[in-house]
C-alpha cells in the first residue's frame, strides 16, 4: 500500500456533508479500498478520477441525508397558493382585471421594446469577421471649429493599410453608389434602377455577403465584372442560374459581365446595395478617389487576430502626417459595427449616437413596467384588510413568515404569467403596426432564447410586483390580525401614496416629452427654410439629358403645369462639398470653409430663394457665368461690407454678383454655414422642377412621357423635395410616434391603478359617507372629500415631474441648432392634463359612491 497516494480531499468532505452519517464510514471505506486497487492498476491520476466518479455516483437517494423540509409538502403548498390566487381573482374581479390589463400592457410594451433593442444591437454584427472588422474615420483639426470627425478617408488609405501595416489582413476602399444616385441597368429592353457599390477586390473577403455563385477572390478581379444581388438577378434575368458571364448594360454606355451573385443583404446591415462594381472604374473620373487630397471613399479593414488596436491606431494616425507635414488629419480605425449605434463624435471623441435612443426606450420600458407593478403592489396592500383573517388563522396554525412570502410571490408570478400570455397575443396582433412606426421588419421568433428571456421577465416582474405585498402582508401581528384589526401605520400609507406619486411623476414626464417632441417636429416641418420646398420634384441628370441639358430644361419648361425648372449639383437636404477660397481684401489667415453649390440659370428662381442684394444668375448679363453668389452668413464671415463686384478666386477668377438670404441646406440640427452658388452647368446632378400646386399628378405624367421620349433606356424615377426633407427627421418622427403611444399606455395604466384605489377607498368609507349624508352633507361635498387625497398626490407629482421634464426636454432640444423655446404653458398643460385625467378617473368612482342612499350602507349596523 502506498501512503503517498490519497484521493482528493474535497470529494470526501462533500460525502461527509451529504451522506447519511451511519452509512458514511462503509461508503468511504469501500471506496478507499477500491482506490488502492486503482492506484496499483492505473496510477494515481486515473485513480483520482475514478474515485471522484464513483463517489459522485453515491449521491443517490438511499445514501443522502433527508433534508428537514418535506419536499412533498412544498408541492402541496404550491397547489394551495395557486388555488387561493385563483379564488381571489374570481372573487375580486375588478382588481384582477386592473392588474391583468396593466401588467399585460406593460409586458407588451417591454416585449416590443425588447424586440426593437435586440434588432438595433444586432445591426452590422452578422459579419464573420465581426471583432476583427474595422472602419477608417478621420479626425480633422480646423482652426476655429475644433475637430471634425469624418466617416470617410482618402482612397489610397486602403493600399497604405494593406502594404504598410502587417497587422492588416485585408483592406478595401468603397464608394457607395448613392454618390451618383441610383444607376440605370438594362438587359435587352428591360431597364431598371438600382443601387451600386464600387469596391476594391477583397470586398467579399471582408464582408460576409455570401456569394451564391462566383468565387469571392475572383469576382472583382476584372474591371468589367459586375456582381448582382439575388433579387436584382431575378428581376433582370428571371433566374439566378447560369447568369454568370451574361451582359448587363450600364447607363446605356458600358457593358459589364456578371461574375457572381450574392445573397440578398439582410435588413440589419447598414450597407444596402443591389450590385457591386470595381472601384477601378472611378479612378479615371475626375472624382479624386485616388488622391490623398480628397476625403470621400470609405475604407474598411480586417485585422489579424490578436492585433492590439491602440498600437495600430498610433501608426495609422501618422500615415498622412508622414507624407504631408502640414496635415491636420488623423485617421483612426474604429470597430465597424460600433459606427451604427455609437457614431456621433464631438471634438474627436465618441459621445453617443443611436445608442441614446436604445437607452431611452429601454428606460421607458422599465418605466411602464414599474407603473404596472406599482398598481399590483397598491391594490394588493390596499386590499390587505380582506385577507387579514386568512393570514391570522394561518399564522395561528403555525405558518411561518416564509410561507406567506412564498404564497404571495406565487400569486404575483401567477398573474404575471397570465399577463405574459395576453401580452404575447397583443404583440402578435400589433406587430405589423409597430413595424410600420419604427420602419423595420421585426418578427416574433419563438426560439429558446426568447422563451428563456420571457421567462426571466415574468420572474423578475412577478418578484418586483410581489415583493412589497409579500413582505407587508406577512408582517401582520397574529393577535391583531385575528381580531380583524389592521393597524395601517403612517409609513405604510406613505408607501402607497409614494408609489402613486411615482406613477404620476413618470406619466407627466412622458406627457411633456411627447408635447415637446411634437412641437419641435412641427417647428422643423414648417420652418421657413429660405426657399420653398413644396411642389418641387427632382430627378437625376443622366444619359441624353447630361449631353443636352440646356434643351432638355428648355423643353421641360414648356410643359403646362410646370412653373420653372433648373438643375443643381446638390439637392437641398444634406450637403457636403466644402472648399476654402481667397477673396479680394481678405485680411486674416483664418481659414473658413465654404459650402459650394453648383447651379444653372433659374435655380434661385425655381427654389424661390430670396436675393437680398445684387441680382441672380441671368442670361441678360453676359458675364454671369463668371459670377458668384454668397449667402449672408458667408458675407458676414468674410467681413465684406460692400460685396458686390468683389473678385473671388475659385476655379479661376469670379465676381460677386449678389447675395442670397440664408437658406437651410442641412438638417436643422446644424447651423447655416457659409455657402456660395456658382454657375456649373457641366457638373449638375439633379434637375429641379417646380410644379403648379394642385396639378402635381398631371404634370408628373407629362414629365414622364417627355422624359422617356427624350432619354430612352433610363427609367424615370423622381422624388419630392419635401419628402426628402421629412426623411431628414425620420428618426425624430419615429421617436415622436413611439413616445406618444408609450405615454398613452403609461397614463392608462396609472389611471387604472388610481381607479382601483379610488374604488377601494370609497368602498371602505361607505359607512362614513352614509353618516355624513344623513347629517346633511351634499354629494359635491363628499366627492370633494374623497378626491382630496388623490388631488394632493397628483399635485405633488406635478411639482416633482416638472423640473425633471424640463431638464430632459432641454437636453433633447439642445441637439437642434434651431429649436422651439420651452414655453411655460407646455408645463401647465402637462400638469393640468394629468390632474384632469386623475380627477376624471377618481371622480366617476366617487360620484357614484357619494350618490348612494345612506339607508343602504347604514342598514346592517
Amino acid at each position, binding site marked *: 500500500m502506498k501512503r503517498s497516494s490519497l484521493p482528493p480531499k474535497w470529494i470526501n468532505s462533500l460525502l461527509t456533508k451529504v451522506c447519511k452519517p451511519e452509512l458514511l464510514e462503509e461508503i468511504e*471505506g469501500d471506496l478507499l479500498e477500491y482506490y488502492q486497487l486503482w492506484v496499483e492498476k492505473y496510477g494515481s491520476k486515473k485513480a483520482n478520477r475514478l474515485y471522484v466518479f464513483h463517489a459522485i*455516483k453515491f449521491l443517490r437517494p*438511499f445514501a443522502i441525508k433527508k433534508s428537514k423540509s418535506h419536499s412533498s409538502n412544498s408541492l402541496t403548498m404550491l397547489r394551495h397558493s395557486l388555488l387561493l390566487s385563483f379564488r381571489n381573482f374570481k372573487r375580486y374581479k375588478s382588481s384582477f382585471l386592473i392588474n391583468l390589463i396593466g401588467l399585460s400592457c406593460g409586458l407588451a410594451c417591454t416585449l416590443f421594446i425588447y424586440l426593437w433593442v435586440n434588432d438595433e444591437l444586432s445591426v452590422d454584427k452578422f459579419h464573420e469577421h465581426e471583432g476583427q472588422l474595422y472602419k477608417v474615420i478621420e479626425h480633422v483639426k480646423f482652426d476655429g471649429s475644433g475637430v471634425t470627425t469624418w466617416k470617410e478617408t482618402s482612397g489610397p488609405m486602403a493600399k497604405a493599410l494593406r502594404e504598410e501595416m502587417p497587422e492588416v489582413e485585408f483592406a478595401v476602399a468603397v464608394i457607395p453608389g448613392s454618390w451618383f444616385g441610383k444607376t440605370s441597368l438594362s438587359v435587352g429592353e428591360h431597364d431598371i434602377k438600382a443601387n451600386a457599390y464600387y469596391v476594391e477586390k477583397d470586398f467579399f473577403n471582408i464582408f460576409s455577403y455570401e456569394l451564391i455563385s462566383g468565387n469571392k477572390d475572383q469576382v472583382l478581379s476584372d474591371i468589367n465584372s459586375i456582381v448582382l444581388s439575388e433579387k436584382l438577378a431575378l428581376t433582370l434575368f428571371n433566374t439566378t442560374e447560369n447568369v454568370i458571364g451574361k451582359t448587363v448594360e450600364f447607363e446605356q454606355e458600358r457593358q459589364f459581365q456578371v461574375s457572381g451573385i450574392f445573397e440578398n443583404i439582410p435588413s440589419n446591415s447598414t450597407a444596402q446595395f443591389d450590385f457591386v462594381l470595381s472601384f477601378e472604374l472611378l479612378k479615371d473620373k475626375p472624382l479624386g478617389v485616388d488622391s490623398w487630397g480628397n476625403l470621400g471613399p470609405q475604407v474598411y479593414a480586417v485585422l489579424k487576430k490578436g492585433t492590439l488596436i491602440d498600437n495600430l491606431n498610433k501608426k495609422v494616425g501618422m500615415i498622412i502626417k508622414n507624407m504631408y507635414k502640414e496635415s491636420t488629419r488623423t485617421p483612426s480605425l474604429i470597430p465597424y459595427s460600433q459606427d451604427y449605434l455609437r457614431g456621433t463624435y464631438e471634438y474627436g471623441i465618441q459621445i453617443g449616437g443611436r445608442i441614446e435612443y436604445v437607452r431611452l426606450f429601454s428606460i421607458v420600458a422599465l418605466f411602464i413596467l414599474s407603473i404596472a407593478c406599482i398598481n399590483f403592489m397598491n391594490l394588493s396592500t390596499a386590499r390587505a384588510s380582506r385577507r387579514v383573517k386568512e393570514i391570522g388563522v394561518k399564522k395561528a396554525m403555525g405558518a411561518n413568515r416564509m410561507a406567506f412570502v412564498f404564497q404571495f410571490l406565487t400569486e404575483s408570478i401567477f398573474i404575471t404569467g397570465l399577463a405574459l400570455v395576453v401580452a404575447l397575443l397583443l404583440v402578435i396582433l400589433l406587430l405589423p403596426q409597430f413595424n410600420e412606426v419604427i420602419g423595420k421588419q421585426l418578427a416574433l421568433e419563438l426560439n429558446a432564447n426568447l422563451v428563456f428571456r420571457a421567462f426571466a421577465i415574468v420572474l423578475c416582474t412577478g418578484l418586483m410586483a410581489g415583493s412589497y405585498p409579500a413582505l407587508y402582508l406577512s408582517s401582520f401581528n397574529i393577535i391583531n390580525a385575528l381580531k380583524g384589526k389592521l393597524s395601517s401605520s403612517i409609513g405604510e400609507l406613505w408607501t402607497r401614496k409614494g408609489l402613486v406619486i411615482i406613477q404620476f411623476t413618470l406619466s407627466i414626464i412622458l406627457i411633456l416629452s411627447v408635447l415637446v417632441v411634437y412641437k419641435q417636429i412641427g417647428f422643423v416641418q414648417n420652418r421657413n427654410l429660405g426657399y420653398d420646398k413644396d411642389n418641387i420634384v427632382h430627378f437625376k441628370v443622366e444619359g441624353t439629358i447630361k449631353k443636352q441639358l440646356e434643351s432638355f430644361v428648355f423643353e421641360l419648361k414648356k410643359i403646362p403645369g410646370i412653373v420653372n425648372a433648373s438643375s443643381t449639383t446638390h439637392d437641398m437636404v444634406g450637403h457636403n462639398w466644402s472648399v476654402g477660397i481667397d477673396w479680394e481684401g481678405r485680411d486674416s489667415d483664418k481659414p473658413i470653409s465654404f459650402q459650394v453649390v453648383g447651379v444653372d440659370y433659374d435655380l434661385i428662381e425655381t427654389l424661390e430663394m430670396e436675393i437680398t442684394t445684387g441680382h441672380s444668375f441671368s442670361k441678360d448679363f453676359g458675364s454671369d457665368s463668371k459670377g458668384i453668389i454668397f449667402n449672408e452668413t458667408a458675407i458676414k464671415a468674410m467681413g465684406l461690407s460692400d460685396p458686390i463686384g468683389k473678385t473671388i478666386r475659385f476655379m479661376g477668377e469670379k465676381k460677386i454678383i449678389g447675395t442670397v438670404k440664408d437658406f437651410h441646406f442641412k438638417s436643422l440640427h446644424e447651423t447655416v454655414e457659409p455657402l456660395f452658388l456658382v454657375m456649373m452647368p457641366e457638373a449638375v446632378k439633379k434637375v429641379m422642377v417646380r410644379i403648379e400646386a394642385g396639378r402635381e399628378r398631371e404634370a408628373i405624367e407629362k414629365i414622364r412621357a417627355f422624359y422617356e421620349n427624350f432619354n430612352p433606356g433610363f427609367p424615370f424615377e423622381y422624388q419630392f423635395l419635401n419628402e426628402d426633407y421629412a426623411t431628414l427627421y425620420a428618426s425624430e418622427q419615429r421617436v415622436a410616434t413611439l413616445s406618444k403611444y408609450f405615454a398613452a399606455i403609461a397614463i392608462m395604466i396609472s389611471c387604472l391603478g388610481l381607479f382601483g384605489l379610488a374604488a377601494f377607498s370609497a368602498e371602505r368609507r361607505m359607512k362614513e359617507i352614509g353618516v355624513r349624508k344623513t347629517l346633511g352633507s351634499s354629494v359635491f361635498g363628499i366627492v370633494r372629500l374623497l378626491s382630496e387625497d388623490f388631488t394632493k398626490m397628483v399635485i405633488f407629482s406635478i411639482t416633482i415631474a416638472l423640473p425633471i421634464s424640463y431638464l430632459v426636454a432641454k437636453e433633447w432640444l439642445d441637439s437642434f441648432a434651431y429649436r422651439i423655446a420651452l414655453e411655460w404653458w407646455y408645463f401647465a398643460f402637462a400638469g393640468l392634463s394629468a390632474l384632469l385625467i386623475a380627477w376624471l378617473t377618481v371622480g366617476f368612482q366617487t360620484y357614484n359612491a357619494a350618490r348612494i342612499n345612506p339607508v343602504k350602507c347604514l342598514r346592517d349596523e
Partner: protein
Amino acid sequence: MRKTYIGELEEVVLLTVAILQEGAYGVAITQYIDTQLERKLSISAVHATLHRLSEKGYVNSSMGGATSERGGRRKRYFKVTTAGSRVLNEIQDARSLLWSQVPPNILAT
C-alpha cells in the same frame, strides 16, 4: 402481508452474500460478482442494492473491527436473514416448477 418480490440484481447480490458468509461486505461482493459472473457493477450500485435488501429485511448487517487498510475505516458485514433464505428458496422452487413444465427441446440453444 403482501408478498415481496425481489429483482434480479437483488437476487444475485443476496446469493453472493450467502456464498461469502462471514466475509460479505461491499468490496468483496462487488469483486465476487465481477469474477464469477463477469459483471461489472459499480460499488455504489451494490451499496444501493444492499440497502434495499436490508430495508426489505432479507439481510442484516453489523460493523466489523477496525482495519489498517482503507484508512482505518470499519467494514459493514452482511448476513442473509431467515426471510432472505426463504425468498431465495421460493425463487428456486418457482423456477424449478416452471422449468419442469417447459417441453423438452423447445429451448435448445
